[in-house]
């Protein structure tokens, strides 16, 4: 196959995607930094293993906070930016628009923005997200699984015995180091620090 010698360029979509990834990374990095200042080295905190999560809604109703400290997170690099989004649209919706009856999210926490035909960007409004995982299930069933749940450690009060972890039917709540407290979809994590122990914080 002949080598492609055309100059590399960034189209609008990849520019936006890269920008969003950077923003998300900076935001989560900031939160991680905030968390580190509240913890000392060796501390462990709770997190959800996205690969074990079964989207059962327990995270929405068992957290001691309301709304829950569990929020939906979007891995933009995995997203297909689809017009018909399994995580955004109600199953069987007649119109692919932003009308309330077309939306899956019970709290209108996902914003849908037109990028360019036929791509749409989906962002989570964390203030509205209750961590019910309805969108996570839809995205995982029909899409790439770019939506997943995470405990936001700028919100979590770090209960000694997390009430959601006690009620998780999938053993998806694991202990992770406080200085690296997020488990991202598609991320290769070196050491298996995530364990399902129900130990101390």
């Amino acid at each position, binding site marked *: 196959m002949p080598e492609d010698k055309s100059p590399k360029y960034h189209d609008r979509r990849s520019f936006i995607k890269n920008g969003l990834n950077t923003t998300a990374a900076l935001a989560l990095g900031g939160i991680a930094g905030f968390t580190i200042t509240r913890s000392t080295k060796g501390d462990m905190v709770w997190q959800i293993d996205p690969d074990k999560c079964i989207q059962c*809604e327990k995270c929405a109703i068992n957290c001691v906070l309301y709304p829950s400290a569990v929020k939906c997170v979007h891995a933009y690099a995995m997203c297909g930016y689809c017009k*018909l989004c*399994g995580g955004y649209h109600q199953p069987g919706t007649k119109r*692919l628009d932003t009308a309330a009856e077309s939306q899956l999210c019970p709290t209108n926490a996902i914003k849908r923005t037109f990028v360019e035909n036929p791509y749409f960007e989906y962002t989570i409004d964390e203030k509205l997200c209750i961590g019910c995982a309805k969108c996570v299930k839809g995205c995982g069933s*029909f899409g790439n699984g770019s939506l997943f749940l995470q405990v936001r450690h700028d919100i979590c009060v770090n209960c000694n015995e997390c009430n959601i972890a006690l009620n998780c039917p999938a053993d998806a709540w694991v202990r992770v180091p406080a200085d690296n407290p997020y488990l991202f979809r598609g991320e290769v994590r070196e050491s298996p620090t995530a364990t399902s122990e129900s130990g101390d914080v």
Partner: protein
Amino acid sequence: MNNKSNSVKNILSGFIIIVIAAGLTFLGYRSLSRKQVTESENPYEYNIEAFLDIPANLIHYSEIKKINTGLKNNYGIAVDSLKQLYVTGDSSVIIFDAEGAVHSSFSLPASANCIAVDKKFTIYLGILNHVEVYDFTGKRTAGWEPLEENSYITSIAASPENVYVADAGKQIVLRYDKSGTLLNRIGDKDEARDIPGFIVPSPYFDVAIDPDGFIWVVNPGRQSLENYNPNGDLRSFWGTASMRLEGFSGCCNPSHIALLPDGSFVTSEKGLERVKVHNRIGEFVSVVAPPKLFTRGTVGLDLAADADGLIYVLDPKAGCVRIFQKTNDRQV
């Protein structure tokens, strides 16, 4: 007078007490039944139950045979002109005869994602980013030059003259001659030629050749099928995004297609696992396999069809190939 007034008061008091008691009983019952609902149901359930049940009168096919492949991971199937079935998975290819018995098998250097067989029984396999060619006896006859970086071959279709390779990584179909020489690209976005470009959000990107020799390519991000000339001109397209039977569900479906001898389309989907037949102009005709036939979460329902119109469906989770025959000519 006083006696009469007292008796009216008593009746009123009794009536009010009865109304209050009935109200309290009703509220108590309601709160108890609400609690039961809350404990037993997930209020945030992602519910697609309504789409899992298919009315029996819409299923015009019945499963007549199930061939267990014996493979742990099943990736692709193909059927030749003698109705021999080829299955690839676990770094090997197994050939079953028309009766479903194992004819032969051979090993591959790595797992092949897809397989195609031409009329001369030459076997083309897509292994990650390159094509390997084998003869019917399992002898490797050629290995084509790897595609670009990040290429990922998900489907191959072989006509008497050409081999079409679907590259999900680069979202393009490549047309080769039988010796592996690249002839042209199909599907590059080109507004002047009214070619929309392929959108492939996930690694399911299928190609098939119709009885007239034209190539059909799934444009999964648009939930449509597009028909191209060998030189890459767009001839037609059809498809609707919908969970209802007339359309294709989710962000990227159909995941696989096959062509019947009369030019009808067989399609399979992921997310809402179902196999359907659409006629030559894309109208829904029949369900072949309803969602409830498959384990929830099954993906990779590769398809093939033989000259008699039998439909072969790879069921990777069950580790088998299901064969369906038309049993009902009722039209919807």
